[in-house]
């Protein structure tokens, strides 16, 4: 689960990391009020940032600077309500604009292959790390942290020296790198990313200037499997940015992802669900969704899955592919009949049920006059043909 920037910054600050002040506004008037407070306290300019989970908000015009309260309000009005990749901006983060001297990248993440926590740093901050990794992999410094003890001081020092953060910044760079790992461990995160981490020019109340390391942006992704033991974090899920179907699926205990095609898929098991989508495309169609009904699904769950699929107006045919192990084929067949009875509109359905109780399922499906298929390839082809007929009609 991805967190919004302002939630991510709260977690960083709770882990003791240096994050400059920020506030969250939902109306242009609030943006104005918050901006004028920062400007009064000595900020030269403020930055207003759209709070959305999709990437590329800067390019989309969702991040703007303002030098006065009037300008901040106008910028706030422009960004709030803006559409970024299909997401309506409902909140903005307002913060004093930093006087940046240099930018870095620093992140802690799960290294699947090495089965360690990977800390990655780069002196080329502020740009996409994937871009750096592709063009100049030598510019990225990597260190593995211990899963129980976190990052050791000497590792953090090595990282800091490699990034050119020795000298006056060494102490704070070490604390930062260790804090990033601590933040990941404390929250069951699988990514804690600061980009940019920046050396900024700060003016103390007495007018003297100094340089400090600050986390100017934050990205945190949580491990969904860890959420049950972090109810406070689970509550931060942003339902506004989810397709309503995704939330409905979660409530039913189904794994559902909406896609752009017109052939609805209902499958048991994630690998088989992906394969079914792939075979639909191979047969010349486009899948409308990924849907795994899980192991041991009963008739009512099957009916709920069918409602989710039909909620998508693009769906013109449905492919049901069940390989019964724990899941019993006759249960699924009964669920399909129940679902068809409640169905809001007529959509052709192709059903393939093999494995546990497949024979009983076949009898039920035949009596109810469902179109059935024997092999996976056959099922995909029949579903694509059914969708074509429905489109033509």
């Amino acid at each position: 689960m991805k967190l919004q920037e302002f939630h991510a910054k709260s977690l960083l600050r709770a882990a003791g990391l240096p994050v400059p002040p920020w506030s969250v506004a939902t109306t242009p008037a609030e943006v104005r009020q918050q901006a004028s407070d920062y400007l009064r306290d000595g900020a030269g300019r403020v930055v207003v940032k759209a709070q959305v989970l999709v990437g590329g908000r800067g390019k989309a015009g969702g991040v703007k600077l303002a030098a006065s309260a009037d300008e901040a309000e106008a910028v706030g009005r422009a960004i709030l309500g803006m559409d970024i990749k299909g997401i309506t901006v409902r909140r903005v983060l307002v913060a004093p604009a930093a006087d940046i001297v240099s930018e870095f990248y620093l992140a802690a993440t799960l290294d699947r292959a090495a089965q360690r926590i990977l800390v990655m740093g780069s002196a080329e901050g502020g740009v996409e790390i994937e871009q750096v990794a592709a063009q100049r992999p030598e510019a990225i410094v990597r260190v593995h942290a211990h899963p129980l003890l976190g990052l050791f001081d000497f590792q953090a020092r090595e990282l800091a020296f490699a990034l050119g953060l020795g000298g006056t910044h060494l102490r704070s760079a070490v604390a930062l790198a260790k804090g990033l790992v601590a933040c990941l461990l404390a929250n069951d995160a699988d990514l804690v990313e600061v980009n940019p981490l920046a050396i900024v020019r700060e003016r103390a109340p007495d007018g003297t200037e100094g340089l400090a390391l600050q986390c100017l942006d934050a990205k945190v992704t949580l491990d969904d499997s860890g959420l049950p033991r972090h109810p406070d974090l689970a509550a931060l899920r942003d339902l506004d940015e989810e397709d309503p179907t995704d939330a409905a699926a979660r409530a039913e205990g189904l794994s559902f992802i909406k896609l752009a095609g017109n052939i609805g898929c209902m499958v048991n098991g994630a690998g088989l669900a992906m394969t079914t989508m792939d075979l639909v495309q191979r047969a010349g169609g486009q899948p409308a969704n990924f849907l795994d009904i899980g192991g041991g699904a009963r008739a009512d769950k099957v009916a709920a899955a069918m409602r989710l699929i039909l909620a998508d107006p693009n769906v013109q045919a449905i492919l049901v592919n069940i390989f019964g192990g724990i899941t019993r084929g006759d249960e699924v067949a009964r669920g399909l009949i129940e679902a068809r009875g409640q169905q809001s509109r007529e959509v052709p359905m192709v059903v393939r049920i093999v494995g546990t109780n497949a024979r009983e399922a076949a009898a039920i499906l035949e009596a109810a006059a469902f179109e059935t298929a024997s092999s996976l390839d056959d099922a995909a082809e029949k579903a694509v043909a059914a969708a074509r007929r429905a489109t033509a009609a």
Partner: protein
Amino acid sequence: MSILVGRETRLLVQGITGREGEFHARQMQAYGTDIVAGMTPGKGGQRALDGSVPVFDTVAQAVAETGANTAISFVPAPGAPDSILEDLAAGIRTIVCITEGIPALDMLRVMPLVEAAGARLIGPNCPGLTSPGRAKVGIIPPSIHRQGRVGLVSRSGTLTYEVVQAMTDAGIGQSTCVGIGGDPIVGSSFIDILGHFRDDEETEAVVLIGEIGGDAEERAAAWAAEHLAHKPMVAFIAGRTAPEGKRMGHAGAIISGGTGTAAGKVAALEAAGIRVAESPTQIPRLLQEAGVRPD
């Protein structure tokens, strides 16, 4: 021979008195697996599976009294990592964890201890493994197998069943079928299992079933090119149509930052000389073209 489990397996079932554990223990026993003990804390002294299996409070007791040498865990996610640690402490060195939903950091903490003990962990979030005709330690439906000489390793559950069924229908039997699990951190990698298949004289060819996310398939391809060239290998990768940035059911099945795509995996496998099927139903034919004869 088969790998990891066989006639010598003396199985302990952790969580045998739970709904899932009981159901699958019964199926494993019916297949002929030697289930010597069950374990549920607080239910020691009871008997499970119609009185045929003694239940113990601790793994140590179960091992001391029955000589269990392999464990399978159906313990729910909050207690599953501990169930693995208890196996290690009691000297069990082959452990299968079926449980789904274990936080990745828990597995990150368990794995160094598994390695230090020299144990082999399969899973979590996996269907377990079956050596057809000898032992089933997991939840793979028993009816789909045929005993034979092709080893299979997969990150998936039902997709594995699909492939095994297609092989059996074509008369191609299996030596051992291993589901390594769909989580980002799993006990055994493709390479670990391929190593066992390399050393197993009965296994003449190998099928690898991968999916999007991570780079386990790419690593396996590079390893196989170097160490498994003498045994024909066929692969299938699920998720060619999966969008970037979305977790496709399995916690580990996610394309992020352009890495973990099906296209990248297919290319890596083909570069290693491994034929990749476009549909699971093609696998038996590709195996035969690689020289595998139906049994």
